[in-house]
């Protein structure tokens, strides 16, 4: 989930190249919630800054149930910019966008 199409495209190529199956994409918080409900993914890669609801809120709503997907937050900012918010959001972890790779995701899963 990211409002930048270029990042979504790059991330899709990168993750598919590393063996992930990318089932869907969303450009804002609201559609992220709808799509996640519809597609029931195992992992949601979620940008912190979305145009409507921010990533922490989306993460909080997506997680909490037994069948909830694993949420990984991504941002072009550093996790230190967000203090304890990442921990509290219910997300499994945080990966800076520049460091996104299949291996980094595997480490968190």
């Amino acid at each position, binding site marked *: 989930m990211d409002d930048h199409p270029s990042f979504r495209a790059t991330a899709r190529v990168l993750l598919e190249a590393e063996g992930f199956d990318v089932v869907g994409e969303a450009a804002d918080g609201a559609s992220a919630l709808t799509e996640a409900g519809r597609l029931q993914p195992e992992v949601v890669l979620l940008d912190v*800054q979305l145009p409507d609801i*921010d990533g922490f809120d989306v993460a909080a709503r997506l997680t909490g149930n037994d069948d909830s997907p694993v949420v990984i937050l991504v941002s*072009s*900012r550093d996790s230190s*910019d*967000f*203090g304890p*918010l990442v921990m509290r959001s219910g997300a499994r972890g945080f990966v800076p966008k*520049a460091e996104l790779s299949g291996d980094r995701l595997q480490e968190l899963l």
Partner: protein
Amino acid sequence: MTSLNRALVAIALAAVVAGGAAAALIVSSDHTPHPGAGIAIGLLIAWSFVGTGLYAWWRRPANRFGALMAAVGFTYMLGSLTASDDSVVFTIGVLLASLYFVVFAHLLLAYPDGRLRRRWHAWLLAGGYALSVVGPLPQLLWGFSERMLESCADCPESALLIERNDTLRDVFNALMSAIGVAIVAVVLVILIRHWRAATAPQRRAMAPVLWSGVAMLVVLATALGTDAAGISRLTDLLGWLSLLVFASVPWVFLIGLVRSRVARAGAVSELLLRLGEAPGTGTLRCRLADALGDRSLQLAFWLDDKGRWVDSDGHAVELPAEDDPARGRTAVELEGRRVGAIVHDRSLCEDPELLGSVAAAAGLAMENERLQAQLRARVEELRASRARIVEAGTDERRRLERNLHDGAQQRLVALSLTLRLAQAKVRKEPDKADELLGAAQQELTLALGELRELARGIHPAILSDRGLGAALEALAGRAPMRVDLADLPSDRLPEPIEAAAYFVVAEALTNVVKYAHASQATVSVTRLNGHAVVEVADDGIGGADPDRGSGLRGLVDRVSALDGRMLLDSPAGSGTRLRAEIPV
């Protein structure tokens, strides 16, 4: 009765007793031609000096002028000892008969506060005192002159007479007179200098006593001169003239005092009238200057919130020190609250009643001017802070441009070159290309880091997205030491306040890291009486200078722009506490 009053009554009684004794001596004398007139004139002069002296002493206990005045009266009575028929008492009387004159010169030199202004004035007077006693010695040692014998045929013999020697006596007499004239001349010069150095209010206070004193000195110096020259008729005339002027001194002084009281009542009532007039008919300063007769008068207004004095334009001013020799200050209060101060010529301190009445009359008008001055000070401050904010904005843009140019932009340029190089090598030298791509990756990570840092400095996204609490938590997490967050607001505050509060904490923590040598800092943001109160306290070395660096100054401007204020408490050795109060 206070101890001062008791002492003054005792002195007055002593004067009465001494006067009685002098009168008794004169009455019983067989060589005083007109005892009745002598007693009347003598006592009138002596008692008027003692009386006005005691009055002045009572009015202004701290001023020695009254005591000197009384001393002139007492020493004047010593002259009556010459009426004694006893040779020894008569001789002592002759020796002490001129003493009063030097005390009078002392009084003139020490006018108006009773203190000598220069050390050498004291030496000059010491010479005068010595001369007044030594002066009659030639007559006493070598016999009276013919003229003296004529006027006092039945006077007793001098107890100190060695032998009659007219030549020796005349030589020494002329010498003593010459020294006497010289001393009187120097005293005159000093008095004229005092007059020229005096301000207008001082001159008004000095005039009566000074001019009658100067007149008497001139007459007396001339008398001494003519005496030495042997023009006896003129000497007698001048002697009477000087006596007349001398006798008038206490009365002139007294009239001056009474006149200043009447003038004071007039000045204050006129001031009250003029203060009631419509504004715009002259400034308050002019009206007070008129009432006190001091063109140099200035007004200072007290700004309670700033804790400093300003002039009517709102510019900061310093009040003269308590012991300033040239300028005095009188506080103006309204309903027990400090409103301002009148800064005036020091000599007006001699008349505290006048100052008190004027200050009391001016209270309300001063309060009005104070409010205007406060407004002007505020406008002045706003103007300065607005200019600083614009300047700070320009500086900030310049800094950003430089950082972007020197940092991320340079790295991206290098990255572009590296990538092109890698592209060229990718087929023929894949290992080299791989190495170059690795380097490019590193360069990119650094560029991203710098851009992130820069963006955070401009405005942290989390502050707008999640509010002050979340932003401060993140800030505390990044700090290189322990930062405790004591209180954070649960609700969002208006955005400008959140931003100001955030940057106050960020700058404060930066300063703590740089200067405070602290192990821990505590941050709290609370809402109190309609204010957001931001506090950053550390356990460091304290002694922070509020003027250090532009960072704190910029924060003060930022907080002031929101009508808030900053307080810095940083005693050496006890940590630093920075507090910002911003109205919500």
